[in-house]
């Protein structure tokens, strides 16, 4: 009997957990029915599970409250900070090619449409780095381009960044304490707006706080190992859907491994080592050979010659 009470309680909390995930209020009332006919469950357990439900719902809704449009404005400001830090490599042909390739890769991701479209920018830096801000501003440095021998490898780099976007990793890097505040604020702002005014100063402070979390995660701290693995695994899936050889991801990481030795910072600081990343993606890849194509190689070479070879 004691054991069955344990299982009963376990089932009940499993149910509560499911409710938090599903965030469904109809099911909440099902919990009220639980004491009495689920062994070992009383009113206290129900209240405990319900408070968990409230917290869970708030977090789900807080992330949900940030619309693609708001992500875009957070992303634009983060992008401006990145541009200000690294400088843009202005080369129209290279930028156009990068945007054509990137937009094509994004079409085959799980998030092909974002508020204002995907934008791809080359940074004038030898450091090996790439960033994806909320709202889909994706940056690659000249140093990163130099790790790519062809369109296939560059597609793999962009796919990894697009995977960060489709999982909203940058938005999720915002501290939970900040979330709670923003969530509450946006709720009260909606009410205030209906009445005509809004607290611009407070919203501005909040915007700066959010921005600070996002840019710190992007430039300084990086994401957790798990999130990077997720981006690599999904990145491989995206390039495969586009029709590129996924082996290009490994080829690019191998070049990066060699180059990072003499070129610290950037991905060396914010990402797992190329060696570890290769270990993650290699089992997913059936063919080790990259299928190249002369049309792709010549458009890549023509567009990227300057960016890959110049030194600042």
């Amino acid at each position, binding site marked *: 009997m004691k054991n069955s009470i344990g299982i009963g309680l376990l089932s009940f909390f499993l*149910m509560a957990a499911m409710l938090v995930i599903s965030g469904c209020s109809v099911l909440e009332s099902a919990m009220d029915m639980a004491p009495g006919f689920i062994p070992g469950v009383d009113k206290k357990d129900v209240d405990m599970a319900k408070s968990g439900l409230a917290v869970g719902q708030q977090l789900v809704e807080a992330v949900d409250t940030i619309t693609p449009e708001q992500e875009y404005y957070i992303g634009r400001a983060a992008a401006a900070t990145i*541009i*200000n830090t690294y400088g843009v490599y202005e080369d129209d042909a290279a*930028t156009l090619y990068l945007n054509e390739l990137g937009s094509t890769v994004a079409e085959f991701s799980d998030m092909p449409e974002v508020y204002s479209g995907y934008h791809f920018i080359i940074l004038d830096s030898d450091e090996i780095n790439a960033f994806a801000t909320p709202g889909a501003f994706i940056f690659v440095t000249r140093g990163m381009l130099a790790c790519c021998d062809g369109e296939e490898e560059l597609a793999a780099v962009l796919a990894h960044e697009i995977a960060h976007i489709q999982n909203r990793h940058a938005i999720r890097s915002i501290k939970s304490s900040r979330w709670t505040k923003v969530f509450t604020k946006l709720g009260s702002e909606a009410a205030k*707006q209906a009445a005509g005014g809004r607290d*611009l100063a407070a919203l*501005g402070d909040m915007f700066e706080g959010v921005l600070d979390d996002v840019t710190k995660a992007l430039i300084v701290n990086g994401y957790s190992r798990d999130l990077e693995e997720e981006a690599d695994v999904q990145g491989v899936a995206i390039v495969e859907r586009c029709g590129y050889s996924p082996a290009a991801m490994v080829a690019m990481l191998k070049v990066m491994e060699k180059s990072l030795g003499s070129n610290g910072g950037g991905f060396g600081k914010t990402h797992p080592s190329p060696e570890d990343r290769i270990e993650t993606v290699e089992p997913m890849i059936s063919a080790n050979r990259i299928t190249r194509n002369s049309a792709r190689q010549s458009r890549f070479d023509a567009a990227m010659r300057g960016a890959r070879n110049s030194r600042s």
Partner: protein
Amino acid sequence: MIHRWLAVLILLVFVLGAGSMWNPVFGQDAMSVQVRSSNVREKASALSKVLGKLAYGSRVSIVGKPGKSWIQVKSQQKTPLAGFMRTSALTKKKLKMKGTGASAAMAKADDVALAGKGFDKEIEDAYRKKNVNLTSAFAFLDKLEDDPKFKVKPEQVVEFVKKGKLKPKEVS
């Protein structure tokens, strides 16, 4: 005793079932466009013909069962546009627009005309004013977004795929 366990089992099945049904689009017969402008296509494919565009806030009716990447829709306009849209372009939320302006008329969604938001153009403007060191960076972003030269159109993607001899495998 058996009755109790049966009850737990039924509840669990019920809850698990509801959990797996949790999907941003499930059970919604109408949705809103949550991006500035979104394409309505002939088929559920990134390479298919674009029949028209719908602006932010436009409402669409869901036709049939939504897929992972695509939803068959019919726009709620006087002359409805019917076709396929991306799930990531749509939300079940009703997006408010200031005034009574018909969404159909908003070919190019005007930020100022949209209400009910937190971080928006006004907040960005205030931020720009405060951080003058970012002026040229923002100017570059404006140029990149507004210059038609860098705007990749759906036909360009089709061309890029074709010329590069790529054979994509799409998820519907």
